[in-house]
């Protein structure tokens, strides 16, 4: 940040920013570019700015939120993005179709399989490839496992942001079992790089199946037990209820999808609304809740974990034999055209719009990330609440900064 001569600090009018006083100014060094910026960066009577992030303990990564406070009350807020921007979309334009799969992996890094799933589906549409049924079953099986891992981590984060120390470590136990399982299947713990155009990279193996079978026998009880510390906790429930309430119309207007939308009462789920893969054949419910507050978003994810367990069970029982990947040439040159594919990730609609110009590299790969979309409603939900609620609301929307900044 370049200090202009004699500019006064918003913290203390006696301090000018030429003196190196170590003040990180929330106000940007340039004149306001929009009306909104001009309005936001003007302090009213008794108000102050506070910089939350990018190195704040609970902004889930490197998000900076400039809060305008009146005492403890948040008057307004302005999320500043881009601290984790890696230019993944541009990188994908300079990589061939197979390579893009590993490029999109670290976007939403707690649910990497869904990051791979939607571009892979889009490329399959471009190439008119028929995916073998066993590959589809393996995709659904591993995807639902990853959904449970992501939701389990969400529960822990939620509690940590409300000041509870223990649930995060308990939920990491759950996540770690799943992650070890997927590591046995894919070879990686976090960025799996498992899906391939036309199928998956490796078949089910003994290590994965034995871990999965072992875990499935106790998964439901174990998740219930580890959540008992929160679900029946008066402090937790009182802090979450009626906080950050959003109604279904506003949620639609803010382009919310996934659990955050279903918590307002709309049973919209891509797996049912625009069916893909083998989901039409599977028997599972779309849980909804009507309150639309943080507690509803939290409880809804518990219901989703139970539905995911049902799906995994069915996948294991119906798993067909056959090849796991379609036969495709090494170098892919899809016909020029456009394809759109959406999957229901743990955070909502994760979709990709791919444009091919006939070469072996995508001309454009537009990634629609639910974290980014959900983060924009923080500005709608927060004003009027307290600082402590910023964390709770943000955690309940479950944004992953890797996906927000791409």
């Amino acid at each position, binding site marked *: 940040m370049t200090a202009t001569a004699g500019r006064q600090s918003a913290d203390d009018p006696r301090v000018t920013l030429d003196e190196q*006083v170590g003040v990180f100014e929330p106000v940007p060094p340039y004149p306001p570019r929009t009306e909104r910026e001009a309005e936001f960066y003007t302090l009213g009577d008794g108000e102050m700015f506070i910089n939350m992030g990018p190195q704040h303990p609970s902004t889930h990564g490197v998000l900076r939120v400039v809060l305008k406070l009146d005492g*403890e009350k948040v008057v307004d807020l302005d999320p500043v993005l881009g601290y984790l921007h890696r230019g993944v979309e541009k990188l994908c334009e300079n990589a061939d179709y197979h390579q893009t799969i590993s490029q999109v992996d670290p976007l939403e890094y707690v649910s990497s399989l869904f990051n791979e799933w939607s571009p892979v589906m889009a490329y399959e549409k471009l190439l008119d490839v028929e995916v073998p049924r066993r590959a589809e079953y393996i995709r659904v099986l591993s995807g639902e496992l990853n959904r449970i891992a992501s939701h389990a981590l969400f529960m822990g984060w939620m509690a940590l942001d*409300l*000041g509870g120390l223990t649930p995060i470590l308990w939920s990491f136990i759950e996540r770690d079992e799943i992650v070890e399982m997927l590591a046995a299947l894919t070879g990686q713990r976090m960025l799996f790089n498992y899906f391939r155009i036309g199928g998956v990279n490796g078949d089910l193996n003994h290590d994965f199946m034995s871990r999965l079978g072992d875990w499935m026998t106790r998964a439901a009880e174990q998740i219930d037990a580890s959540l008992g510390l929160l679900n029946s906790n008066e402090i937790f429930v009182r*802090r979450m209820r009626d906080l950050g309430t959003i109604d279904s119309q506003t949620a639609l207007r803010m382009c919310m999808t996934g659990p955050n939308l279903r918590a307002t009462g709309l049973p919209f789920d891509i797996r049912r609304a625009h069916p893909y893969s083998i989901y039409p054949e599977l028997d599972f419910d779309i849980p909804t809740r009507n309150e639309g507050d943080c507690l509803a978003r939290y409880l809804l994810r518990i219901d989703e974990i139970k539905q995911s367990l049902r799906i995994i069970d069915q996948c294991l029982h119906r798993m067909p034999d056959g090849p796991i990947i379609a036969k495709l040439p090494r170098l892919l040159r899809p016909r020029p055209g456009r394809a759109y594919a959406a999957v229901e990730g743990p955070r909502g609609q994760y979709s990709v719009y791919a444009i091919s110009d006939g070469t072996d590299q995508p001309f454009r790969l537009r990634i629609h990330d639910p974290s980014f979309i959900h983060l924009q409603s923080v500005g709608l939900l927060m004003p009027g609440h307290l600082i402590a609620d910023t964390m709770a609301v943000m955690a309940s929307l479950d944004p992953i900064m890797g996906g927000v900044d791409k």
Partner: protein
Amino acid sequence: MAMVTRTWNRLTIPGRVVLALLLLGALLTVGLIALIILGPAILGILGANLPVVRFVVAATVVLLMTIPTAFLIIYMEMKIIALMNLRIGPDRVGPFGSLLSVVHGLKVLMKEDFTPTGADSTVFTLAPVVTYLGSVMTLLVIPFAPGLFGQDMNIGLLYFFAMGGLAVVGLLMAGWASFNKYSLLGGLRAAAQIISYEVPLLLSVVGLLILAGTMSLNQLVLNQAGWFTDWYIWQQPLGFAVFFIAATAEANRTPFDLTEADSEIVAGFATEYSGMRFGFFFFAEYVNVFIVSALTVTLFFGGWNAPFPFPDINLAADPASLGLGLLILVMVVPVVGTLVLAAPFYLARSSMPAWQALVIGFVLFNIVAVAAVLGWAFVSLEWVAGLLWFMMKTYGFVFLFVWMRGTLPRVRIDQLMGFAWKWLLPASLLNLFVTAAAVIVIREMGA
């Protein structure tokens, strides 16, 4: 001066050590001679001002006592929360990692002590001192054991709350002087929270004071002697509940640790502190936990009283009356004890050399001897038994605080204030009125 410096620089390191020791010896000799000459006069002055001497000694002892106490509680917290989190916790330094908190203490001593530009450096430096001393000085009136207390004041409880209330001034100073908005928010939260919770905290104890008729903590403990049914907890259950909740808030512990809520305002008032100045805040927090537990035990759980009338065993023997027997005891018993304890190892395991058996026997003898001395002290010295009972109960409550920290999330600031004014205050007033009415009714019926 220059010559001294040059000579010192020319010395080797062992030479410097020897020279320093020689100087120290010379100083000690001079001091000893001075003491012999001035001794009677000094003793006279000290004897004439016994309360002052007692206060200085007690304050020093209490100050020194807080450091191992804080280390112990920090270790307990690390280990117990780790076990609750299904982690292992500290296990590297010392047996079961028990010295890790000592290492933490050394670490904060060695870290850079940083004052941010823009901070009000005087207030910034004073704040941890005020907080720490405010907490520690309350320990002066706590009766640890029969006859083991700093000062038995007739307004002991009032003094306790007054000194405890000083700590918040330190937090507010830290929050204001740090030139940081997170610190400011933390300091203001501390002020609002602690002042709000002082009210129910004090009122919850008033009922107990009506029953006891005294504010001297020592007298309060003496009133609760006998069976555990004589403890005030049974007469003042509501008072205890309000007191414990308010005391948790006073000590800034989970679920009321809003002043240093790490997920909201980073570290609250301590955000800009580093090194030993942060260490003082850190220590003060854990000393506070001990103090609050100690006061809870003193007021409601019989202090140093055993939960049942302890059988009066007196094994006290005058060593002087033994005469030659004492010499024999000191000379013979260790040797015989070592041999006796070593014998089974030597006889049972043919592969074990005699010296190994003797080492084992010696170690075992030491353990037995220490246990015997402690046991003797426990049954025959009243204050040892009292201290042990007191510490057992106090650390029971410390465990409770740690348990709450491991389990509960944090409340919100408006819930915190609402709870104090809407629930705790009426509850403590109700307790006060019911107690007062009951006391009057019982007195009238008795008369």
